[in-house]
């Protein structure tokens, strides 16, 4: 048979449409799940989502990005959010919460919330911090003579002067550190004047936008000590880098991935089922194995081998310093401005 150009064009259009339309149709009815790139996206793609599908029948779509991208999309979506569930650091989630984009979870639809360490379930179920990556003090074992044991060592050990790495204020890590310093040296986590005064004493320090950049500074030796998350340092150790991380005696910080139900989302039942699956003891254990997070489910099994590399587990979860971000939202812009001007 000989095809004319017109017949070929019609045929191709029909074929492409037949391939695309069912996908579009399913896209309209499925849950969109936001997550981060790298190890996270790999875990979500290879393990978490297939597991969710076989456990619940839900076939979600994955959207890889940063928490701040998800915020922009929800804001831009107005009364029709692309997501029904949000994942991002708690301080970022607090912004959207303050703007009225979230609504409380119905905990009867999230039975695993019962087993979640209570400190990670926000008041009135307005968000659950389901994935927890503790932040300790990481250092170069070959360049540091006296290993740190306390956050105060950053100020008191002369080895660290001019060799400290910190997150820049755009990263949650910096905001957490600011509040920790306010708590350690001032009247409480909101004593920002004291925190700024003390952090300025650490100048000059390397500033990094994200954990990977802090890791690069440590590997280059530009910084020999830095507050970083366990995930980053364990990954570096797996590659043979001479780095270690300790939990300071005053407690640790943590990137707490806050899951929130988006009021303007359309797949709220699926969102509840997804969160319930994330909070599952086995899923939490799998995450800890994959990227060294600390299981937020109290019934997750933590064997000895795992707890050597991820020590902040089980009862030690109480060492994590969690802060309230609701009032911080009003000061965030002013604090970021101040950091930019004073930490140079």
């Amino acid at each position, binding site marked *: 048979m000989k095809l004319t150009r017109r017949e070929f064009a019609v045929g191709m259009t029909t074929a492409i449409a037949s391939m695309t339309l069912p996908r579009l149709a399913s896209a309209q009815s499925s849950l969109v799940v936001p997550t981060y790139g790298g190890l996270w996206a790999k875990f979500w793609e290879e393990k978490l989502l297939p597991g969710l599908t076989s456990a619940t029948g839900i076939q979600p779509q994955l959207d890889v990005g940063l928490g701040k991208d998800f915020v922009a999309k929800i804001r831009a979506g107005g009364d029709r959010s692309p997501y029904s569930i949000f994942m991002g650091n708690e301080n970022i989630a607090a912004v959207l919460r303050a703007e009225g984009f979230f609504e409380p979870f119905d905990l009867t639809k999230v039975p695993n919330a019962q087993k979640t360490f209570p400190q990670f379930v926000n008041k009135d179920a307005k968000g659950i911090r389901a994935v927890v990556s503790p932040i300790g003090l990481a250092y170069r074992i070959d360049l540091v003579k006296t290993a740190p044991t306390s956050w105060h060592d950053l100020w008191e050990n002369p080895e660290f002067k001019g060799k400290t790495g910190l997150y820049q204020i*755009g990263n949650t890590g910096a905001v957490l550190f600011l509040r920790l310093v306010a708590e350690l040296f001032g009247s409480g986590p909101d004593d920002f004047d004291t925190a700024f005064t003390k952090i300025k004493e650490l100048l000059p320090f390397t500033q990094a936008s994200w954990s990977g950049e802090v890791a690069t500074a440590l590997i280059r030796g530009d910084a020999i000590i830095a507050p970083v998350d366990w995930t980053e340092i364990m990954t570096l150790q797996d590659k043979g880098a001479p780095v270690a991380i300790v939990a300071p005696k005053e407690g640790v910080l943590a990137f707490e991935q806050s899951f929130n139900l988006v009021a303007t989302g359309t797949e709220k039942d699926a969102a509840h089922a997804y969160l319930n699956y994330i909070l599952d003891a086995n899923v939490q254990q799998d995450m800890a194995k994959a990227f060294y997070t600390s299981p937020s489910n109290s019934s997750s099994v933590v064997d000895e081998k795992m707890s050597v590399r991820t020590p902040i587990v089980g009862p030690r979860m109480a060492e994590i310093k969690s802060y309230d971000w609701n009032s911080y939202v009003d000061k*965030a812009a002013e604090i970021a401005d101040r950091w930019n001007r004073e930490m140079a």
Partner: protein
Amino acid sequence: MSALEAVPRIESRSNRGSATWMVVPALVLLIGFFALPYLTIITMSLREASTRAVYGEGLTLSHYTTALGDFYIWGILGRTLLIGATVTVLSLLLGYPVAYHLAKSRSRWTSLLYIFVLSPLLVGLVVRTFAWMIILSNNGVANQALKAIGLITFPLQLMNNSLGVTIALTHVFLPFIILPLLGNLQAISPDLAMASRSLGASRMRTFWKVTLPLSMPGIQAGTILVFVLSISAYVTPAMLGGTGGRTMSVLVVQYLVDNFRWPAGAALAIIMAAVAVMFVGLYLKLTARAMRRLP
């Protein structure tokens, strides 16, 4: 009017009609992807700030007055323009001889040189910037080399300031000045230089009086391209600039993305765009006047 005279006019009208239609797709694209987004940004920049909503209810000029009254913002704006101007001058100084050589060369190795020229664009932006971090950091290749030959004892601060940003931007934007210059230099008839030489002008005088003036359109196009790209670059200043090399793009993104301050960030973006347009306009006017005065 004879029939013969009328024919070209009909053709010309028809050409004009089709030429107008040819502009339509570009016009639609420009309105859809440039004018409308800019209008949205301008509108956003006039919104009240709020921490309990994406933006407040009323309209205000306060984001502009606050930014324009803030020496910190002026400092960053000045640094951005200085980096842009430095990168442009360096790119011109480094790129002109390369473009000149490529235009004149008949060597079979010329294609290899083309690949070298384009090489900065063949590597991903983040990868390339990481490579610069490895070279310019305190314990990086550059400092190690300088230490090894005894020129320094303490590492030089080559990044986390304007210097690192300028070096990396010059590297990446070099092709953007070489390529327009190359096209321009290749279009200059070699007869003109030969005529100049045959009239007794030296090689240098021929270059200054014939080649350089004739390559001014290429210089103008290339420098504008590099300047605009440099002042609007984000990834390189964000990764190599640190606090000491922060530019307007980094500040705008910080306002918009990190701090969720859409109205204030939009105002900064508009200020930046207005300053860029002003500088480019002024530069075009000055260079056009200079070109008119050329022999």
